[in-house]
């Protein structure tokens, strides 16, 4: 007999227990990665600039994120006198929470069997998982707009407006690259997208897995660039351009509220890396055997994060008009062309 899926009806206790376990593990791993991404960024950029980075707290500064967290907890919580209080408090939440909950649809390993029942290693397998990602990607902009507006400061407003214009310009191309992926997969569920990528590639390339990076290289390239712009990382960090806008939309923030913006930046990096790995690089599948699926996925995420940090150490910031020109005149037409060509090929081949 084929084992059935674990559900609330056939084994409620086990289902709830495993669900809570998955939730807590995913949540803690994401938060831990966010905390240590800050340490990694400081260490890596430090070494790239022939400095050492943090060294004092713990072995090679390993306790630095904890020290930073404690310090930020005890900092003064300032709300500017002319700020609109409710949006001012909501903004940091509205930027971090969408980032954290996007992770819920990422599959982090192959199905496992527990006492004869199949358990998918994923918090929830929505049948429209890809669209869920698209929808939540568009919501991060609220936090930034609100932060910029509610602080009632000129730097914040400029940063907020720049950020939102940048994010919405690049979101179009990002959406279209994702469309070209689910045209190949013919499913919107991320679990099935990963499963499809574990099949061998056609013809002479059958030694390679069917990762969509091989069939959609342009889409992968565009997705990584638009992803960088969506999360406001260098070279697209116009919104918080330190040298011109003090700190952009979070100029007026202090204490833990500032820390939440900071955490959100790294959480967004993790999310973009995880989505890129899942959609284009086979998610938990390969290069290591599937029993080590979690390590595969984490390895890919860490590789992307290293790449993003490396870019920050290497590239200067682009100018605003260059940024908008690239978004509208290069990436959007390329992404459209990619979708139409993909559509032509898949309709031809079906």
């Amino acid at each position, binding site marked *: 007999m084929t084992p059935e899926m674990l559900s609330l009806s056939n084994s409620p206790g086990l289902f709830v227990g495993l669900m809570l376990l998955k939730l807590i593990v995913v949540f803690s791993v994401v938060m831990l990665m966010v905390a240590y991404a800050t340490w990694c960024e400081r260490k890596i950029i430090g070494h790239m600039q022939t400095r050492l980075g943090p060294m004092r707290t713990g072995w090679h500064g390993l306790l630095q994120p904890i020290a930073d967290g404690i310090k930020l907890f005890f900092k003064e919580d*300032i709300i500017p006198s002319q700020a609109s209080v409710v949006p001012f408090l909501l903004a940091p939440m509205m930027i971090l929470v969408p980032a954290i909950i996007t992770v819920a649809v990422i599959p982090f390993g192959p199905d496992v069997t527990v006492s004869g029942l199949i358990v998918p290693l994923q918090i929830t397998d929505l049948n429209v998982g890809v669209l869920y990602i698209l929808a939540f990607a568009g919501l991060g902009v609220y936090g930034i707009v609100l932060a910029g507006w509610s602080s009632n*400061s*000129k730097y*914040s407003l400029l940063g907020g407006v720049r950020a939102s*214009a940048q994010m919405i310009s690049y979101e179009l191309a990002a959406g279209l690259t994702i469309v070209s992926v*689910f045209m190949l997969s013919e499913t919107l569920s991320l679990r099935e997208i990963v499963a499809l990528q574990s099949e061998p590639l056609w013809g002479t390339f059958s030694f390679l897995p069917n990762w969509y990076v091989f069939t959609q290289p342009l889409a992968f390239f565009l997705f990584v660039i638009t992803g960088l712009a969506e999360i406001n990382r260098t070279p697209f960090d116009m919104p918080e351009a330190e040298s011109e806008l003090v700190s952009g939309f979070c100029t007026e923030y202090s204490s*833990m509220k500032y820390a939440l913006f900071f955490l959100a930046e790294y959480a967004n990096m993790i999310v973009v890396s995880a989505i890129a790995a899942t959609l284009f690089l086979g998610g938990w599948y390969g290069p290591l055997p599937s029993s080590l699926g979690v390590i595969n996925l984490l390895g890919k995420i860490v590789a992307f994060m290293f790449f993003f940090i490396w870019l920050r150490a290497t590239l200067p910031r682009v100018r605003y008009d260059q940024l908008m020109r690239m978004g509208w005149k290069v990436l959007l037409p390329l992404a459209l062309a990619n979708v*139409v060509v993909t559509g032509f090929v898949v309709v031809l081949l079906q």
Partner: protein
Amino acid sequence: MSSTTGSLPTTAPILFEDYLALGIYVGIALFLVAILLLLSWGLGHRTRSRIKNEPYESGVYPTDNARLKGPVPFYLVAIFFILFDIEVIFVASWAVAYDRLGWAGFGQVSFFTLVLLVGLLHLWKTGALDWGPSAARQNRKNQDIP
């Protein structure tokens, strides 16, 4: 084209489990973020003074209102974004069902995309997508032509 009335729904009915897990996860995320904010509100020391609570303007007294009046290019970007976002969702709606629609559907979506590409090219040519120095140049050129 065939109508949908006869076809069976292809997706499984929505399961309670799907959104239970998601709901709890969202709950945990919101709860933790709220706890972080509350903790820092309680732990951090607080002083009140008029000067401290003023918006930061590099040490100068803030002047005037912190609202930009009429930076039209930003509105235009937002409007173009809405228009092309609608294009993206139409293309995506086609992409999920291209196998059932075949060449007719491909023709439809190509024409749809072409019409909007014409729009994009028009905006490109008239300088709606230009910013900074190139936009100023384009503006002067447009004003020369009465």
